[in-house]
């Protein structure tokens, strides 16, 4: 609501300025360094990282992280800069991968086409960019929510086509296997480490190029189209063309990532280009900060590493409980209150276990999923029933309910809700979630999207977008 007697626009801007917190001193200093030294440092760190001695599995995680970063950076063009809510982005990623796979395997023709990566990747990128233009042209009359649903349907249609149409060439649900590795200058990249280096270099180059674009004319055009398309048009910006460029560029980056993805795993499968991938890319962008390149990349790297750790039975428990503790320490003030809550939690846990054990030992006889230190710490504190599935499911429901209750209540009631939620989280984790890592990962990503939007819409690494006055 604007205050009376003040122009609505000015009052809104004033409100935003007063609510935006001042940037941290560290961040102020960091912003004095130019963009290319920062990007250079990032690139050097990424290139030096394998020298600390990574296993092949860790290199694979690195490849996934860089691929996610590349796709998130590409998604940022349409969503973050041009303000086009494109839910069909994952289809571009898949399209690039499929075009590359067709051009570098035995699928087409008698003996297959085996193009050099030098030819195949540009073809994949250009073809996908053209598809992007076609989709953009088709949807030029719709915006906002309509665009979202049309593009989402486009992704679904892509999924249907790859699964069902022409399974001789596209391979149906089994996809295309036997895709050539990237082959150029007479040598091929065959190791994960090679792809890691390739992706790191490509990511840095793409980010540099996009940064220059964003700071140039087209970047300003995107920004004006995003903030107010009507005004942009009155300022003689050809909004249709500007939007199409955003689509084409985003699709091109996605296709580049898709080609490298196809080459690195030696095949393409329709399952890689469905909703979970789309949501993951969105989560990376949103967590990092929509509209910033560094945010998109940082979000992707952080998200991959954390979710990958949650999948590891050895670290998952540590990461899970560590995250809960960290969350409590960061949000609960004053500290004495935190200590009181943790104390209550411990006493209540031991008491509950003692009572339940006395009543019916079967109910506390189940094994903990976590091992190591966590197991010894929680062994006499947490109840895990011997048939944990259904109680675990209910614990998830209780966790969600208490978590939501904690956001609406205050004072002691809120503290009790949080204590209950932490206990429910531990119970749900040990009873059910740790045994289902991939579903847990998906649920966490979904919850993350919602909570980031509510708590910190600008993302964790991004800056609050200031209005242009």
């Amino acid at each position: 609501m604007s205050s009376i007697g003040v122009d609505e626009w000015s009052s809104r801007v004033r409100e935003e300025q007063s609510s935006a917190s001042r940037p941290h001193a560290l961040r102020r200093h960091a912003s004095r360094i130019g963009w290319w030294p920062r990007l250079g440092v990032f690139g050097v760190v990424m290139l030096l990282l394998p020298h600390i001695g990574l296993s092949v599995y860790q290199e694979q995680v690195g490849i996934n992280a860089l691929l996610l970063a590349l796709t998130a950076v590409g998604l940022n063009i349409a969503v973050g800069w041009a303000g086009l809510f494109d839910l069909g982005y994952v289809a571009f990623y898949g399209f690039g991968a499929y075009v590359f796979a067709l051009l570098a395997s035995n699928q087409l023709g008698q003996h297959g086409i085996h193009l050099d990566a030098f030819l195949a990747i540009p073809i994949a990128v250009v073809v996908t960019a053209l598809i992007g233009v076609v989709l953009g042209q088709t949807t030029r009359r719709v915006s906002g929510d309509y665009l979202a649903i049309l593009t989402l349907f486009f992704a679904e249609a892509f999924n249907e086509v790859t699964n069902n149409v022409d399974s001789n060439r596209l391979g149906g649900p089994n996809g295309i296997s036997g895709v050539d590795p990237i082959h150029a200058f007479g040598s091929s990249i065959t190791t994960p480490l090679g792809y890691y280096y390739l992706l790191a270099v490509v990511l840095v180059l793409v980010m540099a190029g996009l940064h220059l674009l964003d700071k140039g004319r087209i970047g300003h055009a995107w920004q004006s189209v995003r903030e107010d398309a009507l005004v942009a048009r009155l300022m003689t910006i050809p909004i249709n063309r500007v939007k199409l460029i955003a689509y084409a560029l985003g699709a091109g980056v996605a296709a580049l990532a898709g080609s490298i993805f196809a080459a690195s795993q030696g095949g393409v499968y329709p399952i890689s280009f469905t909703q979970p991938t789309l949501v993951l890319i969105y989560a990376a962008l949103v967590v990092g900060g929509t509209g910033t390149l560094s945010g998109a990349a940082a979000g992707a790297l952080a998200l991959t590493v954390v979710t990958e750790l949650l999948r590891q039975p050895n670290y998952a428990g540590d990461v899970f409980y560590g995250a809960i503790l960290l969350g409590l320490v960061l949000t609960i003030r004053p500290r004495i209150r935190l200590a009181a809550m943790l104390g209550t939690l411990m006493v209540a846990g031991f008491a509950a276990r003692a009572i339940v054990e006395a009543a019916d030992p079967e109910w506390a006889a189940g094994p903990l999923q976590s091992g190591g230190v966590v197991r010894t710490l929680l062994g006499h504190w947490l109840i895990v029933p011997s048939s944990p599935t259904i109680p675990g499911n209910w614990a998830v429901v209780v966790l969600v309910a208490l978590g939501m209750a904690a956001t609406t209540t205050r004072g002691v009631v809120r503290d009790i809700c949080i204590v209950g939620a932490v206990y429910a989280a531990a119970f749900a984790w040990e009873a059910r979630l740790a045994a289902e890592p991939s579903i847990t990962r998906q649920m966490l990503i979904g919850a993350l999207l919602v909570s980031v939007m509510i708590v910190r819409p600008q993302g964790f690494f991004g800056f609050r977008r200031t209005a242009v006055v």
Partner: protein
Amino acid sequence: MQLFVQLCVDGLTLGCMYALIALGYSMVYGVLRMLNLAHGDLYMIGAFIGYFILQWSGGPTALALPVPLVLVCMFAVAAIGSAGIGVVIERFAYRPLRKAPSVAALVSSLGVFFLLESAAILFFGAQSRSYNTESFLSFHTGIHLGPLNISLVRILTVVIATATMIGLTVLVRRTSLGRNMRAVSADREAAEMLGISVNQTVRNTFIIGSALAGVAGVMSGLVFGQAVSSLGLVAGLKGFTAAVIGGIGNLPGAMLGGLVIGLAESFTTGYISSTYSNLMVFGLLIVVMLLRPSGLLGKAIAEKV
């Protein structure tokens, strides 16, 4: 000819189901101008609730209660359950974002959609659960016109969908709740100044829309005989497509859009291949978007850009 008529019947049944989803979409969109991507998941949850009610009343082969009572229970509990979840979603995922840019609400609804779908896999498993409708509601009861066979389940679907649409139209046009909804839809701030509780109106809209999704879920369970956790996405897409084709925010339009999609899908399945039915709906959506962006029955809104 016989195939044609049978396909018409199938298409109408399917269309009525889409229409119920579309009605919910349309109402929520009409009031909030917000796309609730999680709407399809409420439909999926409705299908599961119906399945569990069926199990608890003895299982499809040995029902402990009379069939009509079980059916009423399934519909009622699914409607209540879905409505409850819808209200919770609205309160915790959308209300805090009501003043944020629309992209924020969309991302949030994408998160809710993903969360609900994975939660359904966690709770109910990824495999499909069979309703086994045939064993308590034989497909042979119903109307027989020569070779044409319209089973009771299908008649039920059409009747419920039509009754719902009429009821909703009356609700929106005649009752005070409907007046509040129209007011909030037209101008939220002005409605608030005139003493209409926006939060309450939005909550009621979510209750009605989500309950419809739940009912549609049970129906799909009865007609197709299964509930599966991946049901939500495609159903949601088609429901929204139906709403858009009919003209979003327009209740008879949602019904018409649902029927158009249902028939298109049924004919594609019958004459071409079931592989292409979803692609056909997508093509239809694009054509309508290009030729008549405001939908078949929608009022043309002056586009600024």
